[in-house]
């Protein structure tokens, strides 16, 4: 269980977080999305105990954020993968396992399991020789050496190639399936949609929308109707004809009443509506609508 209430964080005169509230239940996957500078990373770092809140309260598993006991139950993955390049994955992960008081045998088991699942074979080569994706895998494995109940991941798939991204996202799904509570942020909204149970859209230090994906869509999204006519009507755009068919025109409207209106105009011009299609808002649409397209 994780709860954030009235969280603010200021850096000098800059208010990065301006009163954020949310709760994440045990075993839930919660996504934070928002444009750059919205306050996501500050929020996640406060959850991890890295930053002290200016005001507000953050409680993780019954402990205040920053409490050393809380840190034992939490795994954090920062946006970058800063590793000690001269160390091998095995020595690096063992070092962190020691800091979490994990005995060597258990640590080795966890390290092997995580690296196997992440498909990282090079375990005794210096990390400095690794690609960005390999380093990311080591960083993810580090977040798991203490077998935490809560995982806080900041852009886990940021900057990775598609193959590695899939591995990371699949791995996150596995963790969710194991009952881990996960809070993570992502730029790629497709990943958020595919992994998260609930989402908060953060904009300008505040939560602009929050809930399940359906709840957010219904609250902030819309259904778009596309009426295709065989004659040109005002506001229509011409679309390519298919293999000798007559030219077709498309009108985007937001209700069936508007579609009827288009039909009347088409008939007045000697044609008709020949096709109607609908499209629900994606999270990206909602995101753009809520944040005003900021990025």
């Amino acid at each position, binding site marked *: 269980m994780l709860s954030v209430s009235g969280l603010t964080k200021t850096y000098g005169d800059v208010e990065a977080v301006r009163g954020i509230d949310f709760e994440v239940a045990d075993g839930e996957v919660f996504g934070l999305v928002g444009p750059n500078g919205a306050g996501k990373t500050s929020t996640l770092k406060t959850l991890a105990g890295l930053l002290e809140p200016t005001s507000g309260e953050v409680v993780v598993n019954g402990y205040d954020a920053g409490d050393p006991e809380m840190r034992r139950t939490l795994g954090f993955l*920062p946006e*970058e993968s800063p*590793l000690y390049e001269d160390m091998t994955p095995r020595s690096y992960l063992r070092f962190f396992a020691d800091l979490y008081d994990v005995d060597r045998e258990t640590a080795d088991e966890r390290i092997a399991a995580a690296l196997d699942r992440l498909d990282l074979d090079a375990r005794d080569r210096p990390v400095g020789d690794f690609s960005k994706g390999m380093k990311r895998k080591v960083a993810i494995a*580090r977040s798991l050496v203490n077998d935490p109940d809560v995982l806080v991941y900041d852009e886990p798939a940021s900057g990775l190639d598609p193959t590695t991204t899939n591995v990371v996202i699949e791995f996150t799904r596995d963790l969710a399936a194991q009952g881990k509570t996960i809070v993570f942020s992502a730029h790629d909204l497709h990943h958020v949609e595919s992994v998260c149970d609930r989402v908060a859209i953060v904009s300008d230090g505040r939560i602009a929308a929050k809930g399940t994906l359906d709840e957010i869509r219904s609250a902030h999204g819309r259904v778009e109707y596309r009426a295709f006519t065989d004659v040109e009507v005002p506001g229509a755009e011409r679309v390519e004809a298919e293999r000798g068919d007559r030219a077709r025109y498309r009108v985007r409207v937001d209700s069936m009443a508007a579609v009827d209106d288009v039909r009347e105009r088409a008939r007045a011009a000697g044609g008709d509506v020949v096709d109607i299609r609908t499209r629900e808002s994606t999270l990206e649409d909602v995101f753009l609508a809520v944040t005003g397209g900021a990025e």
Partner: protein
Amino acid sequence: MNPRRVLRIARWEAGRNAGTVDRRTAILLACTVLVVALVAPALVLYAPTPGEGVYRVAVDDANPYHAPVAANDRLSVVPPGADAVERGRADVAVVGTGGFVVADSEKGRAALATLRSATEAYNDRLMATERDVAAAFPVTVDVSYVERGTRVVGGSDGGTASDGTSDDGAGAGADDGGATTDGDTGATESGTTTGSGAGNGASAPEATPSAGGDASAPANTPGGLTPPFPLESLLLAFVFVLPLNVVIQSYGSSVLDERIDRRGEPLLVSPATRADIVVGKALPYLAAAALVTVPIAYAVGAGVPAVLAVLPLAGLFLGVTFLGALFARSYKELTFVTVTVTVVLMAYAFVPAVFTEVHPIAAISPLSVVVRDIRGDPFQLGGFLLATVPVATAAVVCYGLGLGVYREEDLFTQKRLPAKALDALAAPLSSVRRVGLLTVALVPFVLIAELFAVAALFVAPPDLAVPLVLALVAVIEEVAKSVHVYAGFANARFERSTRTALALGVASGVGFFLGEKLLLLTRLVGLPDLTVGGAAFGNAELGAGSLALLVAPLLLHVVTASVSALGARRSARGYALALAGAVLLHLGYNYTVVSTLG
């Protein structure tokens, strides 16, 4: 702090550094250590004396002067001959049993003076072997009465002012007062004139005139002291301090490495506390300093006191480097920081150590403890405390300040160096009481800075040195009382009200008054007895006297700290102006105290 985690981090830090040293560098380092280990004992045993054999004396093997010349480091024997001087082979030629031909030059005259003192020393050693001591060293007492009031400051033990070249303290003391008969060599200091001899061969050395110094001369500056040049001390100081530079370079890089690319972030999320991390990372370097110091101490014949004196210095090197590495934004800035640290701290340790055994000022340097230990001098607790306590406390304060900013939002931001320094000072200020405590914590730096000022200025004439020391002391103390108050306001730790500023000023002033009692450490070695030492540290002693004298410095510190705090609450410019006013007030007070109490 969790000892197990601290040791785990220390082991990791040591392993990381060992892993980053390639084979070639490792071999180079090993060779350097080996060379130092081999050279250090040689330096002690065979340290060349400046001017060794510089004066050439032409003297026959059978001549009574041959033995004194051969026994003196600064004299060298060259083949005899009356024309040796004329031909430029010698600076002095001994003719017969007491005639001298002296080159008509400064060097010739200096050679003759050296020959005189060498002969005296030789005579003294000869006489010391006599069974009848009273006959060998007849005591002559001249009593003269002088008015009191002439203050002789500095090295006042009878022997030191007389003759720096003598190895024999008893002999040097014995010649004072002209007890030795002036036999008058009659050497005319021309290139070719031969003077008259002084007795027969057997008694010739006794007839040599005394070259003893004037013990009544004031000895409060190196110019007055003409101390023996302690090359050995300098070389040893260098051997002890040099490895510390390598250690701090490595340590500074390691601390900065944690900050580059946020590498240290995962550590901060782990259950290890900030103290665990900082202490764990520092331990290997302190251990390395100890590991280097112990063999060096062993090699040069020093013991536990020497090692215990060097370790706080190593701690301060590391502490200042730690702070510098936290403030630096790049390796370039780190280089600037480490070079500055090296120069300032080496100067602090090195310069006073030059005057070990000569002047009380040497006691401020931990290296003077090393030198005394090597020479086998008795251990002096007072001197040891003065040399080590301020340095050790300053090291601890450096780490304390660094711990305050060893957190995510300070470690990984790219602020300018002064801004980070202010952050470090502001970090512990959560209440008015904390301001007073931080002022106390800054006192060791005040002591070090003031000792440094005294060490730098004691060579200057008192008329110049005293006003300069008074001014420097005022600046140092006023900055120490107010800079963190300004940092607190600048970092919005306190409300910018007059009432708050006054409360902070009072807290800081009282804190400083209590903290400056640390300056009484200087009494342990008599530094306040020096003219410049009295100017610097006399104020701290006032508080130890009567009630009136107790209140005066307390009032001064509270008033000046409040003035600075009132300025600090406004702006940087306001602080600068108020600080200048506080310094002037302080300077006026110091001047009054020094003028009144002498």
